[in-house]
Structures are given as C-alpha cells and as structure tokens.
C-alpha cells in the first residue's frame, strides 16, 4: 500500500520559491491500476519523481509498503528504488551496449544476486512480456515496442511493490502503444500495482482510477 500525506515540494531558484506540489494526500491500494494525469507544468513529473523515490519531498510523509521513505538519504532511497519500484520510461532508457537479458538483469546486480540466478529471473521476466526469443538482442536490433517490453521486463524482474510508468507509450505508434497498454492491463490482472504518468487521456482511459493534477494539487480523483 502507498500512502502520501501532506506532501509538498518547493523548488528554490535564485532565492525565489516555486511550489511544484502542494499538500498532496493520496492512497494507492495494492493491485490498483492508476493514471496520474495533468498538463505539462501541473507537477506530474515531480509527483512521479517523489512516488519513484528519485527525489525527496520538502515536507510530508510517504509510506511505501509499510516503510517511511520521506526522510531517507540518497543511499537508502537507492535501495528502496531497487527493491520496491520498477520504472518504465518514455525513452526506454535501455543500456545500448547490453543484450536484452543483461538489461533486464541489471537491477538485480545491485541486490548482490549471483549471475546465474540473475539470468534465470531475467529470462522469466522476458518471457512474461512475450520476448522469450529475444534475450540475446541488443536494443538497436529491436523495434520500439520490443524495447519498451524489455524495459517493462526490467521493471518487473525485481518483483517490485509498484510499477511506475512515465509516458510509456509516448514514443510508440498507436498500434504498438495499444499492445503496451494491454501488457500493463495483463500485469494488473496478475496482481501488480501499476501507476501510469501521462498527459494522454486516451491512455488514461484504460485505467480504472484517474488522478488529475493541476498547479501542484490533486483536482480530480475518479474511479470508473
């Protein structure tokens, strides 16, 4: 379960405070499928960084899977990201020199897991996203859709509490985008908690719950 209470984030530039998020309260239950929507400048990216433990809030409390993460230092946050968060980015962000298998296994390196076990889990994760036959390919040998599937497999391999996707279909054609959305739906059906950050209403429409941000505040929280 994910619980945010009174989360604020203020950026300070040239002595002037710019509030990016103000007093956010949000609870996400296990196995929810949620879209975080908003125009650019709405605080959506900041929200995603805080949810993903890439950044710390200026104030407020954040409980992730019964662990308070708001006050943690950078090293502890790295460990939380590694164990509890799986990221999917708009630009895939795969390592260009590594094969699909090595890309997927990468998060497990930081957990101190033996190479053979890493590969075994990476292979299983690739099979889960339908790429069992692409383990030896490098990113530049794969289509955009396949790359994003590799990225999803990498996000899943550590069995995270939260799968956090930032505009996952932003760089894909509409047909491939639909396939990726279907993949998220399938993972949700298998019990995975999924949060998609997007400005695209068409993508958000697939999610049972939609949270809209505007000027750093939650202005809408609807369940279908």
């Amino acid at each position, binding site marked *: 379960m994910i619980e945010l209470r009174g989360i604020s984030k203020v950026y300070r530039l040239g002595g002037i405070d710019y509030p990016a998020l103000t007093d956010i309260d949000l609870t996400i239950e296990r196995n929810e499928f949620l879209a975080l929507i908003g125009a650019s400048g709405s605080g959506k990216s900041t929200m995603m*960084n805080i949810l*993903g433990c*890439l*950044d710390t809030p200026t104030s407020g409390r954040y409980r992730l899977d019964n662990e308070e993460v708001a006050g943690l230092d*950078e*090293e502890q946050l*790295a*460990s*939380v*990201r*590694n*164990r509890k*968060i799986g*990221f999917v*980015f708009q630009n895939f*962000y*795969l*390592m260009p*020199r*590594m094969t699909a298998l090595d890309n997927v296994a*990468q*998060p*497990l*390196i*930081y*957990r*101190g*897991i*033996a*190479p053979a*076990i890493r590969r*075994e*889990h990476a292979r*299983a994760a690739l099979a889960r996203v339908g790429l069992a036959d692409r383990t030896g390919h490098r990113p530049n040998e794969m289509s955009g859709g396949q790359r994003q599937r590799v990225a999803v497999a*990498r996000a899943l391999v*550590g*069995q995270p509490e939260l799968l956090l996707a930032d505009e996952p279909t932003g760089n894909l054609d509409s047909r491939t985008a639909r396939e990726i959305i279907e993949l998220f739906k399938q993972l949700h059906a298998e019990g995975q908690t999924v949060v998609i950050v997007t400005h695209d209403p068409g993508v958000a429409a697939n999610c049972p719950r939609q949270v809209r941000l505007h000027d750093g505040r939650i202005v809408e929280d609807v369940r279908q």
Partner: protein
Amino acid sequence: MNANTLVEDAGASRRLIYAIQECLRSALSAIRAHRLRSFLTMLGVIIGVASVICVIALVQGMSSSISQQFQGLGATTLTVRAFTPQEDRLRGQINRLRDTDVEELRYRIDGISNLTPMVPAPVATASYQGNSAGGQFIGTTASLMDVQQLFPKSGRFITQSDDASRRRVVVLGEQVRKDLELPERPEGEFVQIGTEWFKVVGVMESRGELLGMNQDAFLIMPFQTALAFGTAVARPDISITFTVDDPDMVENVKQQVISVIRRAHGLEADDPDDFRVDSADTFINTFNTITGTITAVVAGIVGISLLVGGIGIMNIMLVSVTERTREIGIAKALGAPRRFIMLQFLIEAMVLAVIGGLIGMILGFGLAYAISGAIPNMPPPAVPWWAVTGACLFSMLIGMVFGILPASKAANLAPIDALRYE
C-alpha cells in the same frame, strides 16, 4: 521460480565479488566500444611503462652478465696493486710493488692460499707464420687457475716447474689462437714474442665478452719468465692476488697485508700507502651502485611520464562520465548505490591503466631485445620480476588515483538530473 531467491542473502564478500565481476565486464565493454579512444587514453601509460621496462631490462642484463663474469672471484679474493697518488704521478714518481713482496706475503701471512703474482709481459704482440696477435700478455703462476676459475681447454696450464726454471712456454687465450691462425690444438707450436720463441703448451676455455671487451685476447707465460724476459722494464708493475681461507677473516687478513707491505716498503707512520688492497667485490659493488643510480634516475623520469599518462586517463574519464550521464542516471534509477558507480568507474580507469601497462611492458621487452640485438656486444636484456610486478602495480595505482575524481563525479550525480541529461 522462487521469490525467495531474490532476497539479498549473499554474504558481503560474495556480493563484492559479484560487483567487481560486473564492473570489470562493463569496463571492458566500454573500452571495447571506443577502441581508438581507449588506446589513445592509454598511450601515456604505454610509453611510460615501455621506456622503464626497456631501460631496466638493458641495465639489468648488463649487470647480470657482469656478475656472472665475476662469479669465480668471490669476496674472499683479494688483490694487492701498486697505487700512485695523483700528485706523485705528476711529479713522475710511480710506485710499484716488488717481486720480493710476493715472498713477504707468502711467509708472513697465515690463512691465505693461491698466492698469485701477475706482471704484464714487456712485449704485447705475438706472431706465428706471418700472423700477429695482441692482447693482455701476462706472466703469472700456476695458481691463477684456481683464483680465476679458468681452466685449459686443451693442453696444460703453466706449472710450478715452468716458473722455477723460467721456461719459454705460453698458454693462449682462444682469441689469440684464432688471430695467430694456430690449429685447434696448437700444443707444440712455437710463437714469436719480441725476438724470442715460446712453445705453446695449452689453450684456455673461452670466456666470451664483457662490456664489449673480448676476454679471450690474452697470453700467459710463467711469472719468472716474464720478469727475466727482455731487458726493457726495470720496475715491472706487479700485482698479487690471493684467496683468504676463512671468509670471516677477510678484513683481518687485509689489515695484516697492509702492515706487512708497509713495513716491506719501509713506509713511515705518516706516509700514505703506496699500494691498494681490493676485493673483486669492490668492482661489482661500484658497478651495482652505477646501475642502481641509472635505474633510480630512469624510474624517476618515468614516474613523471606515468603521472602525465594518469592525467590523460583522468581527462578522458571525466569526458566519458559526462557522456554517460544518462547511463549513470538509469543505473541510479534502478537502484545502483553510490559505491557501486564509484567502483565501476574506478575499475574502468584501473583496467585502462593496467592494459596500457601490459602493452607497454610487451613493447618495452621488444624494444630492449631490439636494441641489444642491434648493438654488437650488448649482453641480452634481463627483466627482473620486481620490474614487471612494479610496473603492473604502479599502473594500477595510477589508474586508481586518477580514477577517483571522475568516479566520484559519476557517483555524486543526482538521479533525476542525470536522467534528464540530454
């Protein structure tokens, strides 16, 4: 598939091994991805290590060949030579040992053996059937064989009775035999030295070359023959070599010898010695000091060039960190701890430096062999293990020291800034 296998249960040392393994893999892949750049980055280290290995190999080769030449002459061998201070020499006064000094030592000093006097022959060319040969022509006694550990290849050496009866016999060095175009076994042939004829009784084993000097260009005749032969030299330059039986008594014997000869030469208490007592060690030590100094100076110069090489590595690594900011951001988003990123770039710098060191070492060896092959009479190079390990360790150290700055720059990147970097 069991979820429990993903719990971090490996021990700390096991985890470190996995991390190092992974860093080595990524370092090699990064180096392979930019082959030319990596090579240029290493160039400073390559040149530095190649030059140090080359010079050390040549110097050590020379010094080990010299040590070998002196193996027979241990620390227990002492030589007494006349010594003339510079100012006396300028006045035309030359000191000499006397042939009676040999007998003084023989009867007054205990615990020495192989007492061997040596004197240069008054004529230093020999001829045979129109061929002539030169070299070191000396008169000495039978015991030279034991002192120098030098034995005849064919025939025999000078004997005591040759000396006692001043026989006109000679033993040749291999080079002299060749120069005179004497047969392989020349015993019984006669060679002419000055106006006199000498019978060849033996040829000595070949000793090869030392520092470009042929050591086989010599001729040996009995000591007394050399003293009596010709009329030219009134005060021949005698030297006396002997071995001390008890190695612990060398210094003691040396003092006795000094006082015996001083008395024999009638020196007053405040007169300086007109002779020197040296051991073979003295020469080896002097030589070792020289080679040691050369090695140290070269090592110092090369240390500086390796430092420059290290700065080159640091420079490129800093560029590489900037280029790979995104990659670092991804690794951090996936949960890479600071120390892992640090380790990754440190190892990359070290791998660069060590590969450079190894290439430099091979190049240095090659260069040393090429140089010693191209220069005639140069002894073959020898590379001591300490130079190899030292060069490896030093390049690793260089990589580590100059990797610290780029590595900590990489490790300190904030994940969101690094991810956003275009």
